[in-house]
């Protein structure tokens, strides 16, 4: 294997690990929401426990990329690809953390009857997960058109988030005894909104990878 082939092999390995990390993070987000809906504390605990695998894989990817930069002095697209890999890994690791946060809120809510606003939070989750899946696909295919569409979905998530918060505040006035759950649901909707933001961040990173310039997809 020539030096260049060896470099490309390492680069591809880092990319494959990034896809694995992304899949694990999105799966954790799904599991945490399922645990909430089913009010399944054991499933929530599993999400918390599994997060260490996500964290370790992110560190592993970072170490591989740092070593490649140190040893190979990459430039241009090679360098951008490595930098973007580190950044996307960090975004996905955060998504994993939000899944953990949701799991913790699920444990706090326990077996209290869930408020109806949970349905809109589920819609947010579906959109956020769709965005994350789409951005992973766009990343693999280096498809910036697909990446651009993600930013548009983010507007829908933001609108839903605003609506959920308004309704939760209203519910607080009507059900002062449910203020605990209302606060927890507000946090959960916030974590979903942030997860969608990370999908948009990744889409921006894809633009940087492909075009070599910075774009703001949030405008």
């Amino acid at each position, binding site marked *: 294997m020539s*030096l*260049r082939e060896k470099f490309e092999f390492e680069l591809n390995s880092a990319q494959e690990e990034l896809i694995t990390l992304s899949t694990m993070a999105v799966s954790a987000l799904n599991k945490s929401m399922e645990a909430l809906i089913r009010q399944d504390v054991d499933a929530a605990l599993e999400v918390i426990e599994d997060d260490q695998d996500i964290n370790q894989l992110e560190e592993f990817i970072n170490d591989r990329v740092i070593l490649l930069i140190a040893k190979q002095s990459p*430039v*241009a697209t090679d360098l951008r690809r490595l930098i973007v890999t580190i950044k996307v890994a960090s975004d996905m690791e955060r998504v994993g953390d939000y899944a953990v946060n949701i799991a913790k809120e699920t444990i706090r809510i326990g077996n209290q009857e869930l408020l109806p606003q949970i349905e809109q939070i589920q819609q947010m989750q579906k959109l956020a997960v769709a965005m994350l899946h789409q951005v992973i696909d766009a990343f693999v295919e280096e498809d910036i058109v697909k990446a651009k569409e993600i930013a548009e979905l983010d507007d829908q998530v933001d609108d839903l988030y605003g609506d959920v918060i308004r309704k939760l505040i209203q519910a607080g006035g009507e059900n002062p005894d449910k203020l605990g759950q209302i606060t927890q649901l507000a946090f959960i909707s916030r974590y979903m909104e942030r997860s969608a933001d990370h999908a948009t961040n990744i889409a921006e990173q894809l633009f940087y990878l492909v075009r070599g*310039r910075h*774009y*703001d997809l949030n405008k």
Partner: protein
Amino acid sequence: MTTIITEKTTTEEVNDSAKKAVYETNQLNLWYGSNHALKNIDLEIMENEVTAIIGPSGCGKSTYLKTLNRMVELVPSVKTSGEILYRGRNIFDHDYGVEELRTRVGMVFQKPNPFPKSIYDNIAYGPRIHGIKNKKILDEIVEKSLRGAAIWEEVKDRLNENAYSISGGQQQRICIARALAIEPDVILMDEPTSALDPISTLKVEELVQELKKDYSIIIVTHNMQQAARISDKTAFFLNGEVIEYDQTDTIFSNPSDKRTEDYISGRFG
């Protein structure tokens, strides 16, 4: 896409309007016999900048460098067309004296090539040829040149020793000092660190950064990281053509030609 997406503004834009061109190369062609070594070269080299020339072996980069002080004419069977304006005047004009050009354009080569003389005489050689005999003035030139080449402190007590008695890295800085002694405007460097160890290389690179305040420097290098570290602009040569010429930051972060990207990324060459 760009019309519907906001691109963030960058501060990379470099305004060259304040700087003057030291060399303007227009449609330069050069042949060694039937070998077309340089093809339609258009390059503008700015003063007080470091311009790196990169490219695989045989791409014409050293030929181009040697054309800038007409050293290439030492090779028999060389033919040229087009023009190279140095400070606005075509160096190929019949009445342009090659000696006059070479007093303005110094050169440093791949391997240190001091004369087999004392360190002092190496530096004083050029000024003496130009008629300076006064010992005091020569002393001043020698000290100033050695200081300029960042080697004065290392050799000030050994000026009468043979230049071959010092290390390769020191010899190369003696050669740079020798080029400075004739107070040139431009310094051409042909792979000046390829025969040096990493510490000496670093010293020469730091020196180049210092020298660009007073001189315009054009450096041919095979070391991509060196070009990236020390130059302001980079020209990529391939098969006698300039494929891309841009700010060094752009060349090494986002080159516009795939051949440039392939070369700097080590895919060929």
